[in-house]
């Protein structure tokens, strides 16, 4: 699976303004709404579900990366976005570091395969320190999109 298969280009955010977990999640889900990937009447339900999932254990997986996610019946295919916070967000990560790089995923219920493949792709690409560093330093959505395209074309890792 490639980034292009689940990342909505119009929902990419290079400069998150939120400094806490809920605020960051809210900004990313709002970006998916603005991009027309989720319905307005499902916004709060999706945010609530992602926060519920965080209660089961932080999705801050270390190295300044988090993958907040949920299953939600309102989507019929995997949708996702990427966001960068230059100041970092306290996400209660395993390694105690703040998070600068977010991949948010919403998948349909009973579709664990696609979700796992997206996580596999994200983490495999992020194992490349250069790719991870470039993403965290990106200053515009276009720059992030270009890096994702390059990763999809195997120019990293």
């Amino acid at each position, binding site marked *: 699976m490639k980034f292009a298969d689940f990342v909505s280009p119009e929902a990419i955010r290079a400069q998150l303004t939120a400094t806490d977990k809920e605020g960051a999640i809210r900004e990313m889900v709002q970006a998916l709404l603005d991009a027309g990937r989720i319905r307005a009447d499902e916004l709060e339900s999706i945010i609530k579900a992602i926060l519920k999932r965080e209660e089961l254990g932080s*999705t801050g997986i270390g190295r300044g990366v988090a993958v907040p996610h949920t299953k939600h019946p309102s989507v019929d295919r995997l949708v996702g976005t990427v966001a960068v916070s230059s100041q970092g967000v306290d996400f209660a990560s395993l390694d105690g570091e703040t998070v600068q790089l977010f991949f948010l995923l919403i998948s349909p219920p009973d579709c664990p395969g696609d979700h796992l493949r997206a*996580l596999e792709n994200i*983490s495999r690409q992020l194992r490349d320190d250069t790719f991870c560093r470039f993403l965290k330093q990106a200053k515009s959505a276009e720059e992030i999109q270009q890096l994702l395209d390059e990763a999809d074309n195997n120019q990293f890792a």
Partner: protein
Amino acid sequence: MCEPKATRTVDVTNRSGIHARAATLIAELVRGSRCKVSLIKDRERVDGTDVLQILSLGTRCGEQISFEATGGDAQRVLDALVQLFADNFGEDEEKIQEAENPQ
């Protein structure tokens, strides 16, 4: 001096495979041990303390994964890891479903 080394292979039966929370539980357990643990799948070997590396294996339900532990409490850590899988990462599938799909 030769450090104790042990290996164990488990079947992944969780329907979501080794997902983010499961990978985090594995890494937490390994971080709390006194040994070095590698996860091995299809000849690919990753560091058991690194969630990102564990997720990059993309381990699905029905696949197998091996753990190799080297150091003081290798056997104990492997026993705990096997138990984690046997306990389905502490998940009650119905409760998880409920938590992820609040209506």
